[in-house]
């Protein structure tokens, strides 16, 4: 018999890796399902409002932000210049600043190069899934899993955009298959996964209501940022007071 030990060790290492990649793929699946209808709609709209295939796909590769891309298409079609599109995009996407800051504590000791890449892949959906996973157990969350989540999700977004462009009017209404509900359903799941204390539930409820209220008078991207800032502030004050009382009690 041939000595198989080296191969076994190698395949065991590969199997270890593939386990982590598989975990990432499993996490990316709901994101991809959510991106599918949105990306298809974006590609179809981009094509029908006169963007070329390269313009459509490169925007999904480099910008990678659903709502901002829709806004950009509408602005381009209305004849807006690059500067006004850039300024609008900045405000529409400013909420990522909060997400990036909130995840930073889990990346102690990571290289700047890794974070430069990770930042490029940070969307509402990937943020939600990373923060839920980190909250579960940061010690077992492997970089290779993050790589798989981000890479597959981004690839899904690009392919969906391309598909939308190519199919254009040929795409069926995604609502028929319930796919338009994939993103809200995912947000619900990820929110509930992170409600570990009663205060979390209170913060979530208050922020939800505030977001609806502010959304009546402000554009949704402003309403979401303001509601999240205030909701988290409320939670922080309550915890802060509790800690103060505990200190005073000692």
């Amino acid at each position, binding site marked *: 018999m041939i000595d198989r030990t080296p191969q076994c060790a190698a395949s065991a290492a590969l199997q270890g890796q593939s386990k982590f990649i598989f975990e990432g793929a499993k996490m990316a699946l*709901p994101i991809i*399902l959510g991106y599918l209808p949105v990306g298809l709609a974006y590609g179809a709209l981009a094509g029908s409002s006169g963007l*070329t295939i*390269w*313009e459509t796909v*490169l*925007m999904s590769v*480099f*910008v990678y932000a659903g709502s*901002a891309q829709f806004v950009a298409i509408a602005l381009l079609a209305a004849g807006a*210049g*690059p500067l006004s*599109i*850039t*300024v609008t995009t*900045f405000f529409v996407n400013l909420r990522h600043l*909060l*997400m990036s*800051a*909130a*995840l*930073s*504590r889990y*990346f102690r*000791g*990571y290289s700047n190069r890794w974070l430069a890449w*990770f930042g*490029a892949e*940070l969307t*509402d959906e990937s*943020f939600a899934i990373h923060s*839920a996973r980190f909250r579960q157990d940061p010690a077992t969350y492997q970089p290779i899993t993050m790589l798989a989540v981000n890479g597959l999700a981004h690839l899904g977004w690009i392919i969906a955009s391309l598909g939308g462009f190519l199919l254009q009017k040929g795409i069926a209404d995604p*609502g028929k*298959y*319930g*796919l338009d*509900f*994939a*993103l*809200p*359903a995912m*947000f*619900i*799941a990820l*929110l*509930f*996964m*992170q*409600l570990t204390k009663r205060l979390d539930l209170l913060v*979530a*409820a208050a*922020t*939800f209501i505030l977001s609806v209220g502010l959304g009546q008078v402000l554009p949704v991207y402003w309403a*979401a*940022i303001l*509601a*999240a800032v205030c*909701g*988290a502030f409320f939670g922080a004050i309550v*915890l802060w007071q509790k800690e103060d009382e505990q200190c005073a009690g000692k």
Partner: protein
Amino acid sequence: MRWEVAAAIVGMTLVTYLPRAIPLVVLKDRRLPRFMVLWLQFIPVAILAALLAPSLLQNGGEWSFGWQNPFVVAAIPTILVAAKTRSLMLTTFVGIGMAMIINHLW
């Protein structure tokens, strides 16, 4: 590729990328004030709740709160499954299935 579109994509990429990457790089090894640590701890829950509101209740720029909004109906079993199982996969699939049924009935 037209130059205005290329310029718009470059501009959009920069202003989207920088807010996504800078806090990660700048804050990762820094000791933050206690209050800010507490505040940041609530950001995931708060931002998810804030984004959930329009994704459920807004359709094409219009807010819709009643039962005529199929997402409101689909949200109820989805929330029950999410609260009970805390499983991402199961919740997403139940949600999609419910929405499919409701969209056919409405």
